[in-house]
C-alpha cells in the first residue's frame, strides 16, 4: 500500500456506511436552471401522467393509466413523451415530473435504484427477462453449450442475475458473456449468429417482433438452470406526492382485484401477469 493510502478496517467501513446515510448524494434533487418556471400543479379533476413511446410496453401502460384515472374518478391527462434519445439519465425524470406530469408509467420496481426524490407506486403487473435463441434444438438455457456466448442487454436486472450465476460456476463451465448495448442489438446478434442466445426484457421481444419477422421467429428458452427472473412494473412520482401515491396505490389494488388489469394485459396478448402479491 502506498504511504498515504488508507488502511480500512471493517469497523471503519461500517462507520462510513453510517455516514452515507447522513449524506447520500441522491438526497439532492437534480439541478434545473429554470426550476422557478414550474409551480405547484393545479390538476383539478385530472390525473396528469406521462407515457413514454420509447418504452416497448407503452400501449399497455397507457391503458392501465387510463383505468387508474377512471378508478380515481379523474379525467386522464396524458403527456406523451416523444423524445428521440435512446437513453436518458434518471435525473431527466425530475424535469418531466415538474413540467409535464405527476406520474410517469412504466418503471421496474427494483430495490435501491431510485434516488430519494423519487418514489414508486405499487406494481400493476409482473413480467420478466427472457433468453431468446434461433436454435430450434434448444428448449432451455441449459441446452446451450458452455463454449457458446450469451448476449445480454447489458447491466439490466436480468443481466445481474446472469452475472451472479456465472460467477458461481467454475471458470470452465461459464458461457462467454458479450454485453449488448440494448435489446434490439442483442436480438440482432442472435439472428446474425454472433451469440447463441440473447437475454432481453420480454416486452422488447414482444414489441420488436411486431415489425420484424426474424425476431418474431426467435424462440424463448426456459431459463433453467437459472431461476426465472420476474420483475414488478409500476409508475414513479416525486417523493413529496404522498396523497397522490396512496390514492394511486389504492386504485391499482382495486383494478387488480376486480380483474381489470388482468383483462388489459391478457387482451393485448402481452406476456405479463398481474402482481402475485
Amino acid at each position, binding site marked *: *500500500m*502506498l*504511504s*498515504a*493510502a*488508507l488502511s*480500512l478496517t471493517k469497523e*471503519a*467501513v461500517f462507520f*462510513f456506511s453510517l*455516514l452515507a446515510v447522513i*449524506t*447520500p*448524494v*441522491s*438526497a*439532492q434533487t*437534480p*439541478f*434545473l*436552471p*429554470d*426550476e*422557478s418556471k414550474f409551480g405547484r400543479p393545479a390538476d383539478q379533476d385530472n390525473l396528469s401522467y406521462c407515457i413514454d413511446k*420509447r*418504452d416497448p410496453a407503452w400501449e399497455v401502460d397507457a391503458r392501465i393509466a387510463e383505468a387508474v384515472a377512471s378508478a380515481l374518478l379523474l379525467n386522464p391527462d396524458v403527456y406523451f413523451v416523444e*423524445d428521440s*434519445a*435512446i*437513453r*436518458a*439519465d*434518471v*435525473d*431527466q425524470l*425530475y*424535469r418531466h415530473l415538474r413540467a409535464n406530469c405527476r406520474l*410517469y408509467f*412504466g418503471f421496474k420496481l*427494483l430495490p*435501491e*435504484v431510485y434516488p430519494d426524490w423519487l418514489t414508486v407506486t405499487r406494481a400493476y403487473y409482473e413480467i420478466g427477462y427472457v433468453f431468446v435463441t434461433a436454435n430450434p434444438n434448444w428448449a432451455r438455457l441449459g441446452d446451450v453449450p458452455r463454449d457458446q456466448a450469451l448476449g445480454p442487454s*447489458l*447491466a*439490466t*436486472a436480468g*443481466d*445481474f442475475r446472469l*452475472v451472479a450465476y*456465472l*460467477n458461481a460456476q467454475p471458470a470452465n463451465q461459464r458461457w*462467454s458473456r*458479450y*454485453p*449488448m*448495448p440494448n435489446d434490439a*442489438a442483442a436480438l440482432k446478434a442472435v439472428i446474425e449468429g*454472433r451469440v447463441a442466445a440473447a437475454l432481453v*426484457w420480454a416486452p422488447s421481444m414482444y414489441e420488436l417482433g411486431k415489425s420484424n419477422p426474424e425476431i418474431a421467429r426467435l424462440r424463448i428458452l426456459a431459463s433453467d438452470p437459472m431461476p426465472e427472473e420476474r420483475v414488478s412494473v409500476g409508475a*414513479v412520482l416525486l417523493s413529496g406526492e404522498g396523497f397522490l401515491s396512496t390514492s394511486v396505490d389504492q386504485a391499482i389494488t382495486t383494478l387488480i382485484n376486480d380483474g381489470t388489469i388482468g383483462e388489459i394485459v391478457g387482451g393485448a396478448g402481452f406476456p405479463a401477469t398481474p402482481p402475485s402479491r
Partner: protein
Amino acid sequence: MKKIHLLASSALAALMLVAPTGLAWAQDAASPLDGLETVTDDMLQNPADGDWLNWRRTLDGWGYSPLEQINKENVKDLRVAWTWSLTPGATEITPIVHNGVIFVHNNGDKVQALDAKTGDLLWEYVRELPEAVVTALNAGNSASKRNIAIYGDNIIVATSDVHLIALDAKTGQLAWDVAVADFSKGWRYSGGPTIANGVIVQGMTGCGNAQSGGCFITGHDPQTGAQVWRVNSVAQAGEEGNTWNGIPVESRFGGSVWNSGSYDAEQGLLFYGVGQPYPWIAEMNGLLPVKEGEQNNALYTDSTLAIDPKSGELKWYHQYLANDTWDLDYAYERMIIDLPFKGADTRQLVTVGKLGIIESIDATTGKWLWAKETIPQNVVASIDQTTGEKTINQEAIPHIGETTLNCPADPGGRGWPATAYSPRTQMLYLPLTEFCSNTTPQPIDPGQIYTGGGRATFARVPVENSDGNVGVVSAVKLTDQTEAWSTRQYAPITSAALPTGGGLVFAGDWNRYFRAYDDETGDVLWETRTNNAVNSFPVSYEVDGKQYVAVAVGNGSSQARSIAALTPDLVVPTAGSVLWVFALPDGAEGEGTQAAGNAQPAGDATANAEPSAPAAEATGNGPAGGNAPAAAGGTR
C-alpha cells in the same frame, strides 16, 4: 457608459429571422473587434503574454499567465472591474482572450464577444438547439463547454447537439457547421477543441452503453470543418484488441474524451487523455471475471494518446490505470514540461487522474517516469517504480451484490477543474477533494429508457479520520516531487488553478470564495465572495497595459454538486451565472510590480523575480457578501 447602438435596425430584423443568430453591436468609439488579428499557429504556440488563446493558455497545457502587474504586494487592492451575467446553469468555461476581446461560452451554446476592458457586448451567437437536446441538457451539465478555441478569423465551438461550428470572430456570424455525431444516440461534447498544426481536434464523450466500440477523437479542416481523421479511444479489432477480456468490439463501451488536449510543436505530437470503460463496474462491462488466456486492461481507457495531428496516426500510448472499475478517469490536462529526471533534462508529460496521483511520462516515448500521491486513496496498493504498473487493492473492487469502499469517490480527488504549472516556482498547483464512496453496483434499467448515471449507488462519505475539511489546494515541486504547501478548508475547491507571473495562484470554491494564494507559501493574500459557486477555469489577460483576472461562477456542474453532498450546509443559488473580472484600481497598477517573490528562476518568465515582500494579510476588501454583482463595489 458608452452609447451602444445596433449596426442597423434592418440588419437586426433580418438577423432575427434566421437561426442560429449572430447579432453584432457597434460602439461609437473604435471597437476592439477592429484590431482583432488573425490567429496563426505561431500565435497559438507562442501567445502574447496578454492573450489567453488556448484552453490552458499555452498549448503545453500549463494554465499559467506570465502577467505580473497583479502581484503579492498589491493583490490586496484587487477590485471588480466589471461583471457580465451569463445564461443560468453550469459554467465550466474557459474564456478566450485576444487583442482586447474576451469570448465566452454560455450554458446552452450562446457565445458572446465582450470588450475585455469594459465588459460591453460586441456580438453574440445563440444556437437554436433541438428541444430534445434542451430537455436532456437542462437536467445535467452537458450544455456547458469547458473551452472554445480561436483559429484564423474564427471562434471554434463544439456544440451541445454534437456539431462543430466556426463563428466569425469579428461578427459572430456562422462560418461553417458540421454535424459530427448523433445526439439522440447519446454522443456528447463537453470539452472543446484543440488547434494543433493547422488541424481542429475534438474529443467525443457520452460513450455509455449505447455506443458500441467506444469514443473517439476527430481531426477537422479549419476552413470547412470537414473531418480529416478519426482515432478511436477504445482499441478496435486488430489494434491492441486482445485487451478487452475476449469481448468483441460491439461489446466495448466507454473511453470518453471529455477534455481538450495539449500539443508539442517541436515533436509534432498531440496529447489527449481518455476516460474509463463503461459501464464503470467491471462485472457489468465484461472485463471481470478475467478469462483464461485473456487480458482485461481495456486499452486505451485511462491512457494518454500521442497522435500526429496531421495524419491522425496514433504514435504511442501510455495507460495509467488498467480496467478502471471506479470511474477514476485520466482524462484531464496534459502538461508538457522540461524537467530534470535522474540528472538529465527530460521532456515530461505530467498529468493527474481522479486518484490525485501526479504521474509523469517521457513526452517523447511514453515511458513512465515517476508518481506522487497527493490525497488519501485506497485503490492503488503500490506502483512499480520502473514501469508505473499499479497493483490494485482487491478489497476496493466493486462486485455485484456487495458494497465496497473506494477513495476517492467517483467525482475524483481531482475533477475537471484543472491543475496548473508555474515555471516561476516549478510547482504544480492542484485543486483537490478528499472523500470516499460506498459503492454498490445497481442495474441500469429502472425504466427501459431511463438509466442510472453511474451504474451504481455512490454514497459519498468523508475519508477515514477526516478533520472535516473536504477542499484542498496543494503545491508540489515537480523537480523533486516534494509537497511545497497545502491548504485545507471545509468547502470543496471547485475551480481550476491559475498561477501567474505575479507570484499568485488564483482558485475558487463551492462556497463562492475566489482567492489569491501566495505561490510559494499558500498564504491567502486576497479573497472575495462572488454570487455563486466558483466553478470554471480562471484566466488572466492584459488590455492597454492593465492586467485583468476573469472567472465564471455558477451552479449546475454535476461534479461540483456531487462533492457538495458532503457540505450540505453550504447553499449556493440556483440562478446567477456570472463572469467576474477583476483588476487593480486605476493608478495602482505600478505598485509592487517587482515584488513577485523569491522563487528560483526557471525560465524567461522569472528572470526578473525579486525577493519576496512580506505576505499581506487577507483583506477581504473585495465585494463581500452581496449576491448581486452590481452591488459589489467595483471601481468603474
